[in-house]
């Protein structure tokens, strides 16, 4: 095992970064999309049950099935992996953003408007900062989920550490099969933990002092 890692140190580090990179990009895109959708839903309440149903159904869909459905459209490789991870990453953030925005006290919105803020100002300076802790909790869920989904998407040649696991499976019986599978799995756990810590730190930095719980 030590030799295996020592020999491939650069490659493993590179793939860890690739894994983290894929997930970060997907979660970033997903967060922006989800917040935009949540703002819409917050304005047109009729959409809320629809959004809830879509995310319930979406989270039920097994990721391997979605990979299969996307493959004819986007082919083998990074695009399919990206689309698949983004799809799942949107759902937890969306749900939390809807709940978070709905939880903002109406009187606060009214006073903000009374102070002369426009709709954009209210959104950026009042609603999103107040909902941010809840939204961020959704982002953490999203990030954790995406790590595993990216591993499955590696089956259709997506980037990252998932390929080590699949290589381990293909080489079953070979000398390095276990090494590959262990490095892939443990590597993803490490990337996931580091990412989670970074998000916690981000929370410390970005959650307004007034609404900080701990």
């Amino acid at each position, binding site marked *: 095992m030590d030799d295996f890692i020592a020999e491939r140190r650069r490659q493993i580090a590179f793939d860890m970064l690739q894994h983290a990179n894929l997930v970060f990009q997907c979660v970033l895109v997903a967060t922006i999309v989800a917040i935009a959708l949540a703002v819409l839903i917050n304005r047109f309440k009729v959409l809320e049950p629809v959004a809830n149903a879509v995310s319930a159904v979406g989270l039920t869909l097994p990721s391997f099935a979605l990979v299969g459905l996307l493959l004819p459209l986007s082919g083998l490789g990074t695009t399919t992996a990206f689309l698949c991870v983004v799809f799942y990453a949107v759902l937890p953030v969306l749900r939390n953003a809807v709940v978070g925005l*709905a939880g903002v006290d109406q009187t606060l919105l009214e006073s903000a408007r009374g102070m002369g803020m426009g709709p954009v100002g209210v959104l950026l300076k009042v609603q999103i900062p107040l909902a941010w*802790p809840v939204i961020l909790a959704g982002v953490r869920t999203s990030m954790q989920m995406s790590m595993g989904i990216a591993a499955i998407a590696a*089956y259709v040649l997506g980037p990252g550490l998932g390929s080590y696991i699949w290589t381990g499976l293909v080489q079953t019986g070979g000398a390095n099969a276990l090494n590959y599978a262990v490095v892939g799995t443990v590597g*993803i756990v490490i990337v*996931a933990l580091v990412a989670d810590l970074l998000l916690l730190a981000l929370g410390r930095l970005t959650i307004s002092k007034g609404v900080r719980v701990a």
Partner: protein
Amino acid sequence: MSAETLETTTGPPDHERRTSPDEESAPADRGARGWLARKSVSRETVAMLVVPPVLVALAFIGFLVWRQTAELDSVEANQLKWSTLSRLLVDHLQLTVVAAVIVVAVSLPLGIALTRGRVKRAAPLVVGIANAGQAAPSVGLIVLLFLWLGGGFWTAIIGLSLYGILPVLRNTITGIQAVDPTLVEAARGVGMTSTETLRKIELPLAVPVIMAGIRTSLVLIAGTASLACFIDAGGLGEVLQTGISLFRFSLMITGALLIALLALLIEWIGRLLELAYRPKGV
């Protein structure tokens, strides 16, 4: 109900719980008949009970029509034979049901034990370990078990059960802990033993949360069972796997569609169970 799924899959920090919407506040749907009407059920819950099975049925009918009319070459025809598909479906169901039964049998007593007496202090530790375990990718877990134990049904079952334990365990603990302590005290005050209190007060009140955990777990297991084909344990993933390795769109779509429909159906059954087991007045 849907906000529940998130809570069960994530172990939310407190501020998330604080703002979670009150799902039972919507007025009961008068149109619902029978036992549905007798339990106070929000319109959204009714919609989630009615719409998914209809969609699943429509999609499945669409698949049947396509399957009967499409021109398939020999490879496709072979993989899409009804006998093959039904065998894989049965595999998939067996994997899901057996793993789910094991999950409930293990995590329910474990969860209850972790809310009793002195063991209580270990609860955060156990949940923490389970949480960290959940960060491991499902494929990784399954492949590692395969390399360690060899392929087959029972290896898949071990992987699926390990993966499904967390939601039930966590919800059992949080469900029981969330019971109003004054109720427990009142029960003890009227002379109930601690076992009676558990059986008659704490468990019934915790049932909705526990059932939500079981549903989450069922969905996780049914989805992960689509990976069982990689370790010679069959299941509907096989159609998709074959489709990907031969690059046949018909097989890919069929496999993916059947896996997705089954998962939706299982989620729906979970919702029914959730409603059926909800005690009156909760």
